[in-house]
């Protein structure tokens, strides 16, 4: 391979991975240049990379997946290489070939390799050819339902049906029951066709309690292939990895060595170039080849942590034809690393992506965090809603798990729903701690994980947030009693008796939670508070300020020193055990924002109706012009004062109207309830 120097690198990706690649490129003296869609014009990767080319509209198919647009951008900036990141065009052989045809370097395997691993059947064939164990099944893809049914019956259930063009777990269907066999087969065939444009299904024995172990390999393209140890990605949900770690804890090293050797063997058999991941299922001392991901993986940081290598640098070095620059014996495994993927998604709503502006974002600052968004950025519906990857590295797995749990506790996001609490529940799960898990384990435990109580002190933090809100702008040692927090907060005469409903009400919205109205009862002596939730359950706490933004909180005999971060109505409680974010609003805030509008439209002047734009029954929005009046030589638009349905339109074009005469009414739309 020809040695060269990459000077300008086009990063054909977005989000955290674009930022990640640019970091290393810059460190290597390579100028990174980004690309972006219209939706990403202000995205973090654009800001961070510093120069970026617009390649199309928001939908990925009109930008990040457009080969021509990406190539044009690369040519425009004079790039000598293109890094595709992961996803998008990273595994597209057509793209890889086009890049090379245009005289640039594709940072990744050859188009031929991509072609081979893009197809499950040929990937499996390659493995078999390299004498790597595969899951038993029927050789080659099948597309005749009856034939598939026969094969399945002869194999015995359960069987996994895999779409030939699928990957990353998509296009898989598990057949567990004879009764639904034909239904499953036909469904899988339909899905294979519609989603991946392929006709065929692979039939494989299903391994019910397997772990997912993958080997990171790197090849120079001339037959030198090394492995960078394994990663365990057993924690998956719907075949999407949730938590990844390295090394694979609890498996015998000799077994892992054997798996790694097989992965290297497979790579060598193909003169593999660049970074690749060979995925295996491991169960009871046996292992089986699954597929190859011929690209940089989302979870590459855990390998970087245990090996101390920069995988992106290695990738670029290989691409520049400079070889691996290291031998297998140079590569060591130190400690234990775990990564958790923080997503803007709603676990309570089947993990549906949660889009919108991230109004608050705090990510831990004492561990590695790869993030593609900042506070104030938006999660768009066009792309993967990942917020960040949290990566910890410790001496052993228990410490790493503990670190990750703490890191998740110290993460706070508002504006979008996240899987933070779900991840926190996962890393604290006792079965996971003992690695008594398998690739479908999350699904079997989903309800418990989602409804995990999480922070046992959640009620305390909520109550404290309410206290902090009603005591904000108040001063511990203020000589103005109307502002004095120590004595006068919520002060009322006669609080010696039953205070009844006394106290301050405050609406609180915890990040990722429901809005609730809390009531902070009268302050007692010595900064004692009683806070009531909507069920009138009382919680007693003492909150004494010890320094600006620092409080000593006493509850149920336990003292906690906490820090607070308040900005406007946003209250963040930073406890030793984690961060808790609340949005507070005085009970009248919502009223001030949206007083119902006038629903009767009247003529502002005497004049002639020259146009009526709304028709009876039209749905109209506030500000829409309903009619145009000509009066005093002016054309005056009569605009809707509210949104709703136009009714009682009592004028027609050419009609003379008096000042104050009713033009139309706007009926409220009856049901604006969400469709549930």
């Amino acid at each position, binding site marked *: 391979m020809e040695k060269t120097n990459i000077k300008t690198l086009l990063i054909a990706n977005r989000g955290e991975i674009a930022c990640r690649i640019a970091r290393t490129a810059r460190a290597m003296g390579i100028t990174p240049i980004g690309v972006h869609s219209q939706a990403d014009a202000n995205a973090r990767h654009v800001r961070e990379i510093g120069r970026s080319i617009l390649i199309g509209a928001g939908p990925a198919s009109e930008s990040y997946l457009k080969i021509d647009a990406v190539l044009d951008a690369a040519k425009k900036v004079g790039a000598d290489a293109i890094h595709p990141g992961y996803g998008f065009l990273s595994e597209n052989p057509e793209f890889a070939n086009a890049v090379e045809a245009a005289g640039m370097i594709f940072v990744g395997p050859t188009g031929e390799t991509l072609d081979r691993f893009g197809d499950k059947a040929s990937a499996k064939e390659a493995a078999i050819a390299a004498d790597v164990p595969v899951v038993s099944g029927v050789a080659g893809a099948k597309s005749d339902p009856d034939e598939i049914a026969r094969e399945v019956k002869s194999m015995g259930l359960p069987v996994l049906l895999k779409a030939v063009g699928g990957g990353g777990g998509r296009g898989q269907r598990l057949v567990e029951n004879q009764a639904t066999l034909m239904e499953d087969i036909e469904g899988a065939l339909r899905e294979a066709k519609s989603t991946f444009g392929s006709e065929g299904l692979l039939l494989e024995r299903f391994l019910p309690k397997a772990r997912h172990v993958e080997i990171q390999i790197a090849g120079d393209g001339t037959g030198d292939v090394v492995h960078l140890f394994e990663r365990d990605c057993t924690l998956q949900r719907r075949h999407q990895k949730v938590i990844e770690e390295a090394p694979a804890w609890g498996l015998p090293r000799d077994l892992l060595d054997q798996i790694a050797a097989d992965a290297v063997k497979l790579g060598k058999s193909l003169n593999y170039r660049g970074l690749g991941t060979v995925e295996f299922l491991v169960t009871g001392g046996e292992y089986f080849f699954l597929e190859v991901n011929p690209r940089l993986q989302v979870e590459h940081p855990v390998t970087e942590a245990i090996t101390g290598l920069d995988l992106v640098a290695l990738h670029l070095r290989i691409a520049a034809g400079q070889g691996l620059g290291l031998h297998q014996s140079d590569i060591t495994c130190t400690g234990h690393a775990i990564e958790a993927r923080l997503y803007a998604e709603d676990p309570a709503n089947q993990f549906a992506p949660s889009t919108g502006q991230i109004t608050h974002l705090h990510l831990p600052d004492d561990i590695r965090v790869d993030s593609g968004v900042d506070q104030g950025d938006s999660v768009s519906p066009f792309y993967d809603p990942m917020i960040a990857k949290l990566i910890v590295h410790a001496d052993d797995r228990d410490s790493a798990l503990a670190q990750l749990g703490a890191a998740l506790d110290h993460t706070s996001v508002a504006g979008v729903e996240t899987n933070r609490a779900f991840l926190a529940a996962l890393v604290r799960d006792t079965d996971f701690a003992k690695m008594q898990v398998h690739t479908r384990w999350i699904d079997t435990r989903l309800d418990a994980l989602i409804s995990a109580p999480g922070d046992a002190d959640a009620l305390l933090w909520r109550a404290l947030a309410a206290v902090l*809100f*009603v*005591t*904000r*702008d*108040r001063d511990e*040692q203020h*000589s*103005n*009693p*109307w502002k*004095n*927090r120590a*004595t*006068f*907060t*919520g*002060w*009322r*005469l*006669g609080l*010696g*008796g*039953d205070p*009844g*409903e*006394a*106290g*301050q*009400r*405050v609406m609180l919205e915890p990040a990722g939670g429901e809005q609730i109205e809390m009531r*902070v009862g009268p302050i007692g002596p010595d900064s004692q508070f009683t806070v009531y939730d909507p069920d009138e359950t009382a919680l007693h706490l003492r909150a004494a300020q010890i320094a600006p933004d620092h409080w000593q909180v006493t509850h149920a005999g336990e003292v906690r020193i906490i820090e607070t971060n308040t900005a406007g109505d946003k209250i963040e409680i930073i406890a030793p055990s984690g961060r808790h974010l609340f949005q507070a609003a*005085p*009970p*009248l*805030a*919502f*009223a*001030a924002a949206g*007083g*119902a509008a*006038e629903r009767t439209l009247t003529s502002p002047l005497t004049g002639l109706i020259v146009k009526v734009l709304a028709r009876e029954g039209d749905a109209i929005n506030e500000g829409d012009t309903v009619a145009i009046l000509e009066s005093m030589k002016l054309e005056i638009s009569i605009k809707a004062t509210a949104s709703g349905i136009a009714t009682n339109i009592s004028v027609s074009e050419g009609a003379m109207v008096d000042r104050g005469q009713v033009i139309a009414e706007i009926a409220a739309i009856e049901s604006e309830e969400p469709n549930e």
Partner: protein
Amino acid sequence: MTRMKSTLDTNSDDFRANDAAYRAKNAELHELRLQQRIGGPQKARDRHIKKGKMLPRERVERLVDPGTPFLELGELAGLDKYDGVPPGAGIITGIGMIEGRHCMIIANDATVKGGTYFGMTCKKHVRAQKIAWNNRLPVVTLVDSGGAFLPEQANIFPDEGQFGSIFHQQVGMSGDGVPQIAVVMGPCTAGGAYIPALCDEVVIVRGQGFMYLGGPELTFAATGEKVDAENLGGGKMHSSVSGVTDHLAEDDAHALAITREIVSHLGELPKTRKTPATPTPPAYPTDEIHGIVSRDIKVPTDNREVLARLLDDSEFHEFKPLFGDTLMTGWGRIHGHEVGILANTGVLFVEAALKATHFISLCVQREIPLLFLADVNGFMVGREVEQAGIAKAGAKMITAMSSARVPKFTVITGGSYGAGYLAMLGRPFQPDAMFAWPSGRSAIMGPDQAASVLAQVRVQINAREGTEWTPEEEEAFKAPIRKEYEDFQGAYNYASNLWIDSVIEPGETRDVMALMLDVASRRPKVETKFGVFRF
């Protein structure tokens, strides 16, 4: 400054007995306050809520800035006066912070007889206005009232201090630049319509607030015109046609939100003219006052021990400690606010009255507010003091006390009788605010004295008529008089008649005074013009 020394024995039986007796009194106070806080009967409250309206206390709570104090005044006005009316006379008045500004809040309680005005309701409304006026506090009135309670005509209609005075004061306050805002949250008929109409800005709630001089029924009866309430005086009509109201709200919460916005645009906040010191608690717990105040009215209370528990760090710079020692005078601080204290330690003698005169004039000169802690049986009588000119000395004290235009406050802590009540800044001398502890009592004279005086008169008549009383007959004569005076002199009777603004616990005194002193420190200085002192 000197820290007062306490010699109190909190382990004594006497202390414990006093303490227990006082706590029972406090419990009685809490009970009464709770009654007024609840408002009208359950049914009326349910109906009110069903209409989508907030209860008046909730309106107040939501109007004020979260976490800020609300200093309620006149909460026990009308206690036991009207059938079916809880203490408070159907109206809530008090000082609260809205958008960082102190305001007088006046809120009708429509759950109490439809929020109608009784005699005491009028008096309480007028009193709240007066406090607002004195302190230049914007007035926010939450109007939800059926107007006058007609059978009470004599106590609400013809005289000064009654309903009409509300309007008169509104005009006077407005002339002095005191902002007034009304929120029409219920019907305002006839005279009631003038309360909002005389305000600077008026908010009205659609479909809930109505304003008219004559309602639909009266209009029909008077003129034969048939018109519905909405067209006659509804929020929409008044906001768009008559211009009587300025802001149309959709519900209570919306109206209160608009009101808060209005208050946020009343111009720059008044600045305090005083720089208070850092507040410190008394060196001795305020709570111990309960064990100091004598449970037996024949045994005097050691007011020096009481004072040691009211002042910051118990520091008291006493003025003329060796002269006229039946009255303590001196300076101290309450929550950092400097205040001149006059507290009784016995009957007023010539020297005490002269000392008070001297002291008051010093406070006026130094612009230091005055606090009278009243516990006095009156001025001394007898040949000696008359010859010493006690009438002249008392007149000096009254002239100084009455003329002083620094903020001045009264707390009746014990018995406050006769001319002593008056000289210790009694109600007729218009204290900025006047409070009594549950142990406070006041009358022309004590029950025993009254019974004795009247019995003596009777004995003289008997002597003229040549008859004589048996001891039993004398007691039968005295007992009802004693009872009458006992009933009259209680703090709750004073509160019911609004002769005081509130009954407060000893433990609340510092807080109430601090809030009042801060409010008073923001009003412009008023020059004192002393009347003639007789020498």
